């Protein structure tokens, strides 16, 4: 992507991605400024009290003081109320907009291919939708308001100053313009530094989350100290970057003070000189100095919020970058639905290489007929899992074409495809929820009775009924409160419940005990009559009963056929089978 992510582009993009941010923005801004304008009346009246009453050579007129005080108070109350309404509106739109942006970013990440999601550490990805967005939130709620109100106050104060004494106002304005131009230049350096901060924040969270996930391994291998050291070094790096960036920002911020000093001094000198020349009263000059204060204070806030803004822009940049990543597994532009009934699979000269890696699959051509039961076997690392992922379109081939049910895979709408095709991956991942809810991931509308039936159909009824809480048993993070085999059982039922027309099992029973494995296989075979199934297994009993066996070796299909015929070839399969048979021979 050659997009230039300048702060301006980024903000425009944010408005585009979360249009809520724009809702009623004009009115909000108008109200914020109006509120500010009205509150400015108060200091002006205060000046007048000082100038016309307190410093009046004729002595003090208490009733005049009280009148003016009343005006000041009324203006104050109105201004403050209008200001609050504006603030509230801003809080609402910004929170809603950012929540939308957060959900959108999350949704976009979820639409990315598995490879893409797994290429980054979980913790770092999580930081995209949590802490990166939080920096924005902070900015919108503190900085955004400060910036808008501050800037409008600068404008107003300038206007009042012009009316009050235009020559001096010109000097003040000139100073402000020069100063802001200088700031603009520094902001760019600050922006780069904040990018670094956000990066280190992401990295440190990645390291933290990995270390937390690894606690059992760390404990088992006694590597507590090296783990702590690894996290500590990531934290230290983050701290250094945060600190030096902060320091730079502070120096920048402090220049506002020096600027204020120089401006005030200049104004006094200029005022006195103009005054001597053209008869300006002391009261006017003093009052003008108060006005200057009204200009400087918001200016300081603006400088400070610009720092916030850079931090937020860096967060936003990371978020937008995620949104700009193209989705690799795209929805078809000219969708074609699958016909009902069993599904066939066809590979034509398919090749696949992981990004930047060598070819993992080469020239795979095969046909899995409707309703057939196919087994895929082969050495570890020979490309079986990759094959399975291609067959269910979790990956797209680098070369060749894949047809599912006679339709080109990229033409099938994804939701439709997932409804018809089920894939059970090698690692039985469960969500931290109940067994029933985990199964519902396979088919949202299933009720408890259907789920219960599914377990029983597959011969797992005894197991679920044996659990104290039955279907309501909570499975823990990643399903950790179940045994590895039990996790696989739930994963199979989950795929099963959607009555898929093509079922792809990747070592889906590798941890299940042999008795249950065989029984489960029978149940599936009985129930998938007429539907297509592809099973990858190192337990070759699957291959023995299959209609066809594909033997993978080094990314190619080296042998294919029925179990009996393959044995006769005396090749790779026969070798594997001999090892399997001698391995399973109980005596």
């Amino acid at each position: 992507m050659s997009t230039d992510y300048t702060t301006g582009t980024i903000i425009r993009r944010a408005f585009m991605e979360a249009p809520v941010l724009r809702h009623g923005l004009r009115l909000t801004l108008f109200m914020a400024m109006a509120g500010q304008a009205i509150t400015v009346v108060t200091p002006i009246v205060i000046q007048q009290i000082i100038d016309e009453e307190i410093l009046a050579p004729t002595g003090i007129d208490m009733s005049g003081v009280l009148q003016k005080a009343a005006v000041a108070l009324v203006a104050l109350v109105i201004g403050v109320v209008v200001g609050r309404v504006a603030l509230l509106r801003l809080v609402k739109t910004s929170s809603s907009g950012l929540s939308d942006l957060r959900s959108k970013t999350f949704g976009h990440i979820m639409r990315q291919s598995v490879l893409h999601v797994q290429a980054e550490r979980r913790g770092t990805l999580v930081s995209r939708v949590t802490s990166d967005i939080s920096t924005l939130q902070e900015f919108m709620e503190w900085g955004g308001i400060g910036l808008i109100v501050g800037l409008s106050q600068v404008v107003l104060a300038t206007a009042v100053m012009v009316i009050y004494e235009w020559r001096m106002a010109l000097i003040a304005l000139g100073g402000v313009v020069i100063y802001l131009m200088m700031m603009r230049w520094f902001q760019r350096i600050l922006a780069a530094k904040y990018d670094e901060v956000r990066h280190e924040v992401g990295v440190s969270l990645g390291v933290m989350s990995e270390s937390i996930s690894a606690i059992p391994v760390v404990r088992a291998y006694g590597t507590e100290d090296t783990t702590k050291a690894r996290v500590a070094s990531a934290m230290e790096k983050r701290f250094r970057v945060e600190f030096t960036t902060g320091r730079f920002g502070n120096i920048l911020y402090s220049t506002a003070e020096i600027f204020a000093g120089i401006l005030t001094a200049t104004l006094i000198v200029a005022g006195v000189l103009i005054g001597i020349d053209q008869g300006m009263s002391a009261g006017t000059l003093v009052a003008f100095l108060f006005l200057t204060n009204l200009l400087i204070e918001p200016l300081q806030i603006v400088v400070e919020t610009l720092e916030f803004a850079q931090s937020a822009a860096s967060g936003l940049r990371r978020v937008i970058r995620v949104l700009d990543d193209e989705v690799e597994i795209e929805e078809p532009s000219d969708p074609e639905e699958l016909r009902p009934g069993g599904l066939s699979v066809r590979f034509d000269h398919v090749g696949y290489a992981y990004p930047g890696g060598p070819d993992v699959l080469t020239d795979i051509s095969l046909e899995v007929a409707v309703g057939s039961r196919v087994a895929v076997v082969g050495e570890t690392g020979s490309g079986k899992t990759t094959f399975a992922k291609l067959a269910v379109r979790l990956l797209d081939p680098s070369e060749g074409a894949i047809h599912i049910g006679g339709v080109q895979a990229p033409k099938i709408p994804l939701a439709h495809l997932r409804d018809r095709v089920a894939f059970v991956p090698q690692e039985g991942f469960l969500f931290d929820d109940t067994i029933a809810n985990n199964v519902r991931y396979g088919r949202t509308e299933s009720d408890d009775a259907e789920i219960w039936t599914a377990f029983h159909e597959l011969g797992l009824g005894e197991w679920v009924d044996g659990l104290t809480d039955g279907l309501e048993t909570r499975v823990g993070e990643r399903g950790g409160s179940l045994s590895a085999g039990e996790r696989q059982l739930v994963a199979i039922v989950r795929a099963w419940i959607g009555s898929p027309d093509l079922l792809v099992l990747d070592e889906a029973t590798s941890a299940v005990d042999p008795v249950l494995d065989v029984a489960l296989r029978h149940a599936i075979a009985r129930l998938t009559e007429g539907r297509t199934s592809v099973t990858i297994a190192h337990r070759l009993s699957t291959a023995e009963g299959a209609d066809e066996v594909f033997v993978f070796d080094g990314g190619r299909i080296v042998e294919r056929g029925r179990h009996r015929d393959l044995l006769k070839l005396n090749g790779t399969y026969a070798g594997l089978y001999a090892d399997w048979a001698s391995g399973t021979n109980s005596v």
Partner: protein
Amino acid sequence: MTPWTVVRDGSRLIWRFVKMHPVAFSIAVFGAAMFAAAILASALVIGWITDNVIIPILDQGQEPDLLPIAAAAIIGVAAFKAVGIVLRRTAAGWLQSGTRRDVRNELLAHQLSLKMSWYNKQTIGDLLAVADSDVNQGTGVLGPLPYATGVTMLLIGTVSMISLIDPWLGVSAVVGLVAVIAIDVHGSWVTYGMWEEVQEGRGRVSSIAHESFDGALTVKSLGREHYVSGRFREASEALRDRLIEVNSTWTKYQVIIRALPQLLIVLLLVVGAARIDAGAITAGNVVTVAYLLSLLAFPIQLIGFVLWDLAGSLAGWKRVQAVFDADAHIEYGERAATTDGGAAAILGSAVDFAYDTEPVLTGLDLDIAAGTTLAVVGPTGSGKSTLSLLLARLWDPDSGQIHLDGRDLRTFAGSELPKEVSYVAQDAFLFDTTVRGNITLDAVFSDADIATATRLAGATSFIDELPDGLDTELGERGTTLSGGQRQRLALARALIRKPRLMVLDDATSAVDPSVEAEILMALKSADLPSTIVVVAYRPSSIKLADEVVFLDEKRILGHGSHIELLEASPGYAQLMQAYEKEARRLREEAS
């Protein structure tokens, strides 16, 4: 919670942080004091310039001799103030970022010292939220704290100055300030509860995000992207509503606080005018006071910010503290490991174990001589992994003991037992580092050691084919490897340590039969100085074992040689012969 407890707990929390970085805090407060002094000085300078430069020159027509001095004084004070600002903010940054770094390190160290029973009940996403957003939120108050401390000095200084000018003005100022602070405290108290909900909401958002990314393969293969996105959106919107609630409540307070200084000035002018009228004070006095107060407008708001942040900090810290309060520490003894003792014997006696309330193992007795290879067999969910975990002391028995060479596992000092026991989990966990790093886990091993271990684990050939060999970087949890490749690295990690006891929990389940046979042969012929406990289903692995334990119905149902068990235990025979029977059935069916 009452407003008072917010102040009290808040002060305690602040004190905890300040103690961690006293120097940074002192420098920051010093900077704030410089800043406060500069504000007072600038008010005095302005008053002095008004009385001695501007009025005499403009109204009384004196010569502008003092003008350069006036300009220099203003710029000088500004420079002094700038230095104060840099000192304060930089030191406060050190204080805040440094505290966050330290707390995060402490958090991890604490989590590493806790028992698995605690860990079992947590979700990683939530723990991550604690380490990330709760720590940030919990230490949020440290940002404005030194500033506020300076402001407090400033306020005291200002009020004293005002009181010196005129006691009545002083009283009005004190009343005004007390009112502001009371309002702030009230706001802080009201929002505290809301902040708690916000932090919980953040935890939930983080948990869902983490789990969904972690299980991305499953989500995608089931086509449930929309569903999890919907779940995430719900959590995000709940968080949004809470944030809106807390912020809108706060804006109520904020507007009051923004208005109050102005209100105070008007009040002072009215009182001041009356006092001038009464001849008690001069006009210059009132101008000075009004100016002082106008300068205070922002600092007074700042006290509000601190109290506001304090509410957020208390809420965030509560969740951090909850992790620190978990005191299910693993208890270690004093014993050092004996690494050169050869294979170690295992003795388990009357071991009872439950993860929660449901017993998983009951009255388990196990006596394994040194150097034995023991196979653990049992149906799915019978407690094989549980037994492995107990042997590696990832969990402790609820009652009964486990001894390694006559030493209770619990008597070993921290990190000592792993020097004698290596454990390979059923799900191979790999780190996002190199192949080498995954095998050595940052301990020092020679290349020859690594070569031997990878050869025994049957991993040499695929490692050689990786683009950078041993130095190839793997993704998180080793995603760039196939299932069998991951398992073999995990196996190599255990083998390289030449442990006295090696526990392999179904460590070859994802490996094909030929490679498995190779690995088993290699292990057999390597003559390892280890007692080996292997959980397995395949008779091939089991036949290599000297003894077999058959686990079922929460206890050991049989213990003996493979052949003995085949005869004695029908459950065992059924497990072992399942595939054979199936093969026979298929052959019969075919013919």
